[in-house]
């Protein structure tokens, strides 16, 4: 992308700039937020059931997996890479955790640690293959999508792995804190930690610089390979977190769950204003993007759109949103 020097004298940031245009051009996700409001109003008008506290809690619970994984994906995409393997990591982490709990007794903490470790480890492999061998992450993680999913089927013999551990269910899905369902607490925690990490730490600055211009980052003394590896590991770790919540919800880990979930995750991140070319994006944007996906999934069911149409409508809305955000650049 070549940048032409503007001939006109510096009038950038001039007070005459139209505030609406400035908002549309801003990296802050005003437009996505507006889109979310429009969707909520739309479904509320069509169905009285939609606009209720109970349903919003529903949406929150249903969006948990996408939101948590989208936070990790935001780091990966801002660093100018992509992770297509998140849904497969979720399967493999989940069944590893469940198998551990099935075979080694009651210790759910160790089981959870195993699940998280598996996810992080696969992220590490993704990162190493991408940076050390220089294979585009699109291909590395496409391959990993198959490898992790295949392994999940192999070690479970394609059968669901049942979990029978009340404490585990409570910690990851069924409990409440201050009246809030625990999945929402997990989502809030991941969003907060992710937001602080991206926006308030030195590591966050490195992620933006690596994705914005890897050469300039390297020339500034940043180890861009390491930054990317950490991003993939974070994505893997958060897929592991999601797998535990998922397993606690289903009382089992199943290798055939969550197929295609990576598309919802990537869509949420892109809807939230993160640039596929790297260097731009926010956690709050990703959160709003996930809510849009969640509201769509929930609202379409409530107003009685058939599940076949739901898939098509969701795809269409994503294309429109991305086309819109591409136009403003």
């Amino acid at each position, binding site marked *: 992308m*070549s*940048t032409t*020097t*503007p*001939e*006109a*004298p*510096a*009038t*950038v*940031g*001039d007070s*005459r700039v139209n505030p609406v245009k400035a908002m549309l051009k801003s990296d802050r996700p005003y437009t996505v937020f507006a889109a979310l409001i429009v969707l909520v109003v739309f479904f509320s008008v069509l169905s009285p059931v939609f606009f209720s506290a109970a349903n919003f809690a529903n949406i929150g619970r249903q969006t948990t997996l996408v939101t948590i994984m989208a936070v990790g994906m935001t780091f990966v995409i801002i660093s100018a890479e992509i992770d297509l393997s998140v849904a497969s990591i979720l399967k493999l982490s989940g069944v590893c955790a469940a198998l551990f709990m099935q075979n080694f007794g009651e210790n759910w903490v160790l089981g959870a640690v195993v699940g998280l470790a598996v996810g992080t480890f696969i992220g590490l492999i993704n990162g190493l293959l991408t940076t050390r061998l220089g294979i585009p992450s699109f291909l590395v993680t496409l391959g990993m999508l198959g490898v992790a999913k295949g392994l999940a089927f192999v070690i479970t013999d394609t059968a669901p792995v049942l979990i029978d551990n009340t404490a585990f269910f409570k910690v990851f899905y069924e409990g409440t804190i201050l009246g809030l369902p625990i999945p929402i607490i997990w989502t809030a925690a991941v969003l907060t930690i992710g937001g*602080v990490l991206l926006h*308030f*730490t*030195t590591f*966050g*600055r*490195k992620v*933006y*610089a690596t994705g*914005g*211009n890897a*050469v*300039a*980052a*390297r*020339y*500034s*003394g*940043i*180890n861009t390979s390491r930054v990317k590896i950490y991003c993939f590991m974070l994505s893997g770790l958060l897929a592991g977190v999601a797998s535990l919540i998922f397993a606690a919800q289903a009382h089992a880990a199943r290798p055939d769950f969550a197929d295609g979930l990576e598309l919802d995750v990537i869509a949420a991140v892109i809807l939230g204003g993160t*640039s596929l070319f790297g*260097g*731009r994006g926010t956690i709050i944007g990703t959160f709003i993007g996930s809510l849009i996906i969640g509201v769509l999934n929930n609202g379409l069911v409530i107003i009685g759109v058939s599940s076949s149409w739901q898939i098509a409508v969701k795809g269409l809305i994503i294309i429109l949103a991305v086309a819109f955000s591409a136009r403003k650049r």
Partner: protein
Amino acid sequence: MTEAKPLIDMRDITVSFGVVRALRGVNFELHPGEVHALLGQNGAGKSTLIKVLSGVYQRDSGDVLIHGEQTQFKSAQDSRESGIAMVYQDLSLVPTMTVAANLFLGREPHGPLNLIRNRGLVSKAQAYLDEQGFPVKANASVDSLPFAYRQLTEIAKALMGEIKILVLDEPTSALSAGEEEILFEAVEEVTKRGVGVVYVTHRLHEVFRISDRVTVLRDGLNAGTFETADITMETLVQAIVGPGHEKMTQSTLSFEEGQRRSALLDASSEQVDVPPVIELRDVTNDRLNRVRLKVRPGEIFGLAGMVGSGRTEILETMFGLRRTVEGELLYQGEAVAWRSPAPAIRSGVALIPEDRHLQGLVLSDTISANVALPQLRGLTKFGMFARRESNRRAKSAVSELNVKAPGIVTKLEDLSGGNQQKVVFGKWLTPEPKLLLLDEPTVGVDVGARDEIYGIIRRFAQAGCAVVVISSDLVELEMLCDNIAVVHDGRIITTVHTSEIEGEEGLHQLVQESAR
């Protein structure tokens, strides 16, 4: 110069963008066989004028007469059909294809069954290139060509058809001193056949080398049109900069600069043992061959040579981007083996790279974020990014370096070239570097900002920093440096003290001789 009908006659052109009046009544004329240079600082209106000529912008008022006829170009296509060819800075060739395939892209000669006749393509292209007098092989792949020859291919492509007017927009900005000649000879060939050339440039010596006339624009107005033979560098600079900038020529050094130079001279004449900041002892690697050099604190050391001579690789080796295979790299008297820029930066080495867009800046990020990049380690408190301290540094960099921007959260992509370059310098202000490496620090920077950058470089040296500068602009090197090494083929051919060189020509000769 013939006073026949001019090829271009632009009269009283005005163009506005909203409230900004980019052109306020500009006149410009071009005769057949003439090279007419167009000069001016960034924002003076050069590009706008060229874009009116090429149909990209529409004028608000005024007349454009091409071959004596009134015209109103609505698109680049219209302009092309009137016989005007533009060659832009950004190359429009497909690098993986041959010169011939590029020349005939989209209009390849066809044989039976409508298949492309490759052999015919090459011979046809070669005949055309020979006829133009361009020394380029038609069957060469474009990415195998040195940059100057790619540019010739570009010009050859632009000239295909009934072209009478050629517009070159900063054609030498990516070329080294030696390569320029190739381009100039091609331009001379072109003018012999009656083609008029509009030559937009920032480099004044080129104006004297190649143009017949010069038009200078300033603030959207004509600041004068001169016969090149009748003017001096000083008059030209004055016309570009306007009144109130007489200091421009740098003929008078500041008091501090004079002090720095005499202190340096004293130190060397009295054999005072000032240890060098950086010393290369027979450093050899994949691109360098037994390179030896020393730079002391406060010294400005120049590296001259053609593009591809190994100049940049010497800097890269000093910055940890290349390994030292044989020989020793001593930093502050100690042998070091840096394997990435990070340890070099921690030890106080700073690099202003050649390509600021590619290597120097994150354009999508703010001034503040860019300035913070090399010092993130020092800007971390309890794992958190010290935003306030970072903003404070960015603010002081903006004011110290006179960056013209609305604020420190302005994105780099919204700044002009000169201001972007100042931000690259801003990355290395705190903590003060001990060794500053500069690769072509003023490429694509207008005359005014260029002068400020010289001032910045000198201030670093005055503060005791050792500075190494690469430049293809030999005048610049001679003006800035205390010592200059001429590099060729990964070796240092000779090192001279600037006082031993007789003007730009002397240095030019050294560089030319080294290449033989």
